């Protein structure tokens, strides 16, 4: 090692410069993670499949593909997509630093733990926003080529916002488990356990129980209902299946802007009697505005609560290794 005389350097110390350094640190980690790159490839593969499969099938059965001007606006990563994007983005954001020992070097720099935490969150936001934007551009261009001109493209920013809120619910949960356990594996398995339990139980509770309203207060798809749209152009009244959970904020936001006065009706399946047709029982109906407001409030509450738990655990964590 060569001892070289170095000129004394002047430092400017605005907190924003230090914050951006943390964001850059995390961004580089995110975009170079193999699992994140893998997830992006899988997402593009599914988007491509969604675009090309109908074309292949229509050619096989010899029927021309009908126009779908709402294809781009109605497409999204979906519940599993939100969960997986959240998982690959933040599953080792905090716990991975403890596991690899890199937390020692990071936390001895002049950045507070709160700044590190916020920087990591902001980096996750940028990564998700960029990925979802590129995916939407891809779907919009592909949708225009396959299904003709697309409607309501001005609503795309709202769709992105809704999708990011949905993803951030899972991000908050994954981060909280990771910060408490300091283990990426426990964060991944714990969050997957919660996701799969809700993913499986939600349709069962929704279909067979009178208590479907409970689902509107847990993360995920929520309760399933039917959206009754009155005065829908030439078609008069039409109905559309909707889910009301935190994973469906974007879809319900678009529905609300397009059909502001519509209602969501919830049903359950009645007791099965041999030889009798399946009985569908109407439970209750709610304005879409209420459903949207509630799911957004529930999502924001989950985000704030779990992020607070995560921040608190990180702030108090001692670096023993």
């Amino acid at each position, binding site marked *: 090692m060569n001892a070289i005389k170095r000129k004394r350097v*002047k430092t400017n110390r605005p907190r924003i410069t230090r914050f951006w350094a943390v964001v*850059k640190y995390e961004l580089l980690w995110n975009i170079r993670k193999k699992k994140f790159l893998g997830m992006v490839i899988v997402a593009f593969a599914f988007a491509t499949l969604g675009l090309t499969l109908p074309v292949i099938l229509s050619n096989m059965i010899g029927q021309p593909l009908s126009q779908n001007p709402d294809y781009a606006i109605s497409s999204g990563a979906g519940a599993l997509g939100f969960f997986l994007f959240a998982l690959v983005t933040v599953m080792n954001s905090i716990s991975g630093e403890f596991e690899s020992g890199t937390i020692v070097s990071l936390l001895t720099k002049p950045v507070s733990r709160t700044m590190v935490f916020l920087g990591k969150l902001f980096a996750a936001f940028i990564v998700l926003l960029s990925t979802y934007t590129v995916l939407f551009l891809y779907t919009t261009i592909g949708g225009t080529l396959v299904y003709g001109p697309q409607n309501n493209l001005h609503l795309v920013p709202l769709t992105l916002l809704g999708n990011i809120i949905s993803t951030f619910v899972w991000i908050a949960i994954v981060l909280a488990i990771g910060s408490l356990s300091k283990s990426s594996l426990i964060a991944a398995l714990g969050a997957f356990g919660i996701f799969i339990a809700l993913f499986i139980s939600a349709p069962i509770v929704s279909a067979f129980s009178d208590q479907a309203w409970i689902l509107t207060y847990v993360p995920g798809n929520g309760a399933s209902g039917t959206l009754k749209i009155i005065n829908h152009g030439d078609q008069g009244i039409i109905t559309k299946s909707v889910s009301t959970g935190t994973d469906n904020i974007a879809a319900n936001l678009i529905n609300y802007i397009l059909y502001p006065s519509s209602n969501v009706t919830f049903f359950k399946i009645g007791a099965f009697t041999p030889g009798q047709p399946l009985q569908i029982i109407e439970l209750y109906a709610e304005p879409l505005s209420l459903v949207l407001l509630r799911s957004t409030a529930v999502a924001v509450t989950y985000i704030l609560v779990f992020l607070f738990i995560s921040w608190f655990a990180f702030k108090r964590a001692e670096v023993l290794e």
Partner: protein
Amino acid sequence: MFGLEFAIETIDLTKRYGHLTAVDKLNLRVKANTIHGFLGPNGAGKTTTIKILVGLLKPNEGIVKVLGQETRGDNADIRLKIGYMPELPKFPKHLTGYELLDIYGKMYGLPKTARREQIPKLLEMVGLKERGRDRIGKYSKGMQQRIGIAQALINEPELVILDEPSLGLDPVGMVEVRELVKAIAEEGKTVFISSHLLFEVEQVCSHVTIIHRGVSLVSDTLQNVSNKLSGPTTLQIEVAKLSDSIVETVKRLPFVSNVSQDGNTMTIELETRDDVRSQISQEITKSGGVIVSMNVKGQSLEEAFIQLVAKSHGGKTV
């Protein structure tokens, strides 16, 4: 650091992990602009103390002052003036050496122009000029240690804390680290260096604190610690035709505490650890004696350290 007497000061610093007391009422004072060695066997509490100093751990009791400021909790501003290299440092493998220094430099608030100027120099200084654009994941253990030193200096710190900087380095690398530590100190910085390698501390430090089981056993200048611990240095001199007058002349020297004679050999106990051989040989020659051989016998810091640690174990050598 003009006017600052101590770069580090702890008062009754205590850290417990459950029932285990890792640091026990430690009173540590590191003078500004010195190279201060922090010695102790493995598990003595060195790393725990350092982690408290840099804000990674919170003490159960006691006061910690770094560069004159009392540290409480997560105080990022104090860390602006500190450079720290952890024991066996780990850095994100996805970053290149250059990117790591650039990001860390930005965290210290260094402007882009300063970073561009500083980083190549640091990489050259630690011998990683040719590997700066390689990912850290491809670095050897020694290279990670070198980039660890570079990142500890990116902010031109007033206080450099190095935790076992030679760990994992080959002998050449260890010598280079020692030279580097001296060079850092020449720039007017305080260097606090933790090590279990006594010869390393002996070669670079001006002050030393010895810690064992979380308790400070001794803390002073290296010279004073050696004097306190090592006992008298002894010289054995064989003189052709040794006379009583020669013995009396040597006895009268101010730094000589005792002289015994066995045939033509004198055994001289010294009160100092300074090198006084030339003065003694001059006096012997003046008195008409001819020196045949001269041997220095005395405890090294290492022997003294082992003895000290053994004493604190109740007589058992560790």
